[in-house]
């Protein structure tokens, strides 16, 4: 039995997203296992980023449910009960459940604890590397500073919280090998370093689910190796599940526990990396042919060609 079936952290159910007449995501359902690295793959324009945007509150999905069980297992019955109430979240004995499609973006980050990165780097370029990581701990600090009033009086509890936030930021800088660049503006760092800094910043929000949109795009082989080990470290040392969009198949096959494949907005395959790799539907989608039978033909042809 796979973890995404027995203990899902996020259940995407019948999710659709339409833009006028265009259907970007069409009735997609799958689960993300707690503690897994789940890869979301598919050809360009398959709807992967749209799906991410729905999960993180960038878009309101046209229809569908996004049930997020932050800590414990969410019982199907409880999820259904919450759906009927129309509320955003329910506190259960086994942990909180959140209906992500009902929440605004900052609450998804602050309460449900879903963090994300983008295809293009969106660091605060004018702030230092360290400050970028401290901003990510905004909510904890805002409480500690009593909405700035206690901060103004410099009370000890606030100063302790600030020190702790800076220590955590420094620890993450050390982990991504950037402690010597702490006070440089984030925009001045090399591209690969900015990628890792962005992931570290997302981790500083203390996420239960980390969504990464093509983190290896534009990285050289050494840098994507560093990225893969960073992701494994996050999965092993933190209670963070990872959902990742990635085109680099070597990265996907190396690190993921579970692969979900989209094509033209629909789900075409869902399973372990080995299962997906051998799924004729996936091969057909990637080769751009219409059905699985034709794909087998093409694969056989390619095999013959390469043996010549």
């Amino acid at each position, binding site marked *: 039995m796979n973890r995404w079936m027995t203990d899902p952290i996020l259940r995407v159910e019948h999710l659709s997203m339409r833009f006028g007449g265009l259907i970007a995501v069409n009735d997609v359902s799958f689960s993300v296992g707690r503690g897994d690295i789940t890869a979301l793959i598919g050809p360009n324009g398959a709807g992967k980023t749209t799906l991410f945007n729905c999960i*993180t*509150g*960038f878009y309101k999905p046209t229809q569908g449910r996004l049930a997020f069980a932050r800590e414990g297992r969410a019982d199907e019955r409880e999820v259904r009960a919450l759906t009927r109430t129309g509320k955003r979240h329910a506190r259960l004995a086994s942990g909180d459940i959140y209906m992500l499609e009902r929440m*605004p*973006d*900052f609450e998804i*980050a*602050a309460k449900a604890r879903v*963090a*994300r990165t*983008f295809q293009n780097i*969106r660091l*605060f*370029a*004018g*702030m230092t590397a360290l*400050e970028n990581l*401290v*901003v*990510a701990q*905004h*909510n904890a*600090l*805002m409480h*500690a*500073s009593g*909405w*700035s009033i206690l*901060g*103004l009086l410099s009370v000890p509890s606030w100063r302790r919280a600030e020190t702790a936030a800076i220590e955590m930021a420094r620890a993450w800088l050390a982990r991504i090998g950037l402690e010597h660049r702490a006070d440089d503006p984030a925009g001045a760092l090399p591209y690969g370093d900015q990628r890792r800094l962005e992931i570290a*910043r*997302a981790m500083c*929000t203390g996420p239960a689910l980390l969504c990464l949109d093509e983190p290896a795009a534009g990285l050289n082989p050494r840098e994507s190796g560093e990225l893969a080990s960073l992701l494994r470290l996050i999965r092993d040392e933190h209670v963070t599940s990872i959902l990742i969009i990635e085109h680099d198949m070597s990265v996907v096959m190396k690190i993921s526990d579970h692969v979900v494949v989209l094509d033209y907005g629909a789900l075409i395959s869902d399973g372990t990396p080995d299962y997906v790799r051998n799924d004729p539907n996936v091969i057909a989608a990637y080769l751009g042919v219409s059905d699985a039978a034709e794909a087998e033909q093409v694969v056989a042809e390619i095999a013959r060609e390469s043996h010549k």
Partner: protein
Amino acid sequence: MENFLQQLINGLTLGSIYGLIAIGYTMVFGIIGMVNFAHGDVFMVSTFIALIIFLALTTLFSIPSIYIALFLVMVAAMILTSVWSWAIERLAYRPLRGSFRLAPLISAIGMSIFLMNFVQVTQGPRNKPMPPILEHVFYLYGQPGAANAVTISSRQIIIMAATAILLTIFWYVVQKTALGRAQRAVEQDRKMAALLGVNVNRTVSITFIIGAMLASVAGTLYLLQYGVVRFDDGFIPGVKAFTAAVLGGIGSIPGAVLGGLLIGLIEVLWAAYVSSDYKNAAAFSILIIVLIFMPSGLLGRPEVEKV
């Protein structure tokens, strides 16, 4: 020389008031890229609030110490003006934030006219005077009655001291606390800040509130210095403060203060040495000259083009 020193003191007093108002313009522009044209009128409203509370305190409750009364007036004006500014942002600007760029600007001009007319209708079109207080004058140089005496009044001391203290407090908040970091993050990338858990709407509201608080301090001090206020008194100081913000580099808080002091000095010195008729023209000419040679203002960062 004595005359110059005297004008310097007068100019810095006026400049402090401009600087306090200018911070509201510069912070709001920094965080949402909008010129809040109603800010000058928020300043005028705060002056009326200060006047009403001052009269209420001194006549109805007969507060014995003028300093305690002044302190209470300032605190009350800060709170009430914040409510006004918060409501303006909530009603007139936030619903238009996703709209095209000029929409909130036009809404701000409308809000400015509304505030002016509202005060004209409720308070009347004439000057509202306040009984003169704190008229003690210190002689820094020369004897009372002498033509070359250099003086500073206790009002001027209070104005400069209050400006310095409040600037330090708000500077500390913006630079050192989580709120300030969130403001700078929202300034750079609003959507990303939201995805890190920053409540963008609340951060923008707080920015408007901080701007209004500083404007209300300016309003109270303005009333203290000039003793009268009228419904259209927000316009000229508002435009001057906006000029100060642009001169110092819009988006930069130290720039706004520097710009305010400079505009105050230019205006007073021009009036003293050249002609008091053209003091406004002089201030704006300096603005134009500075912007020709330094397009991003004195302390502004040059705009980096994103590719």
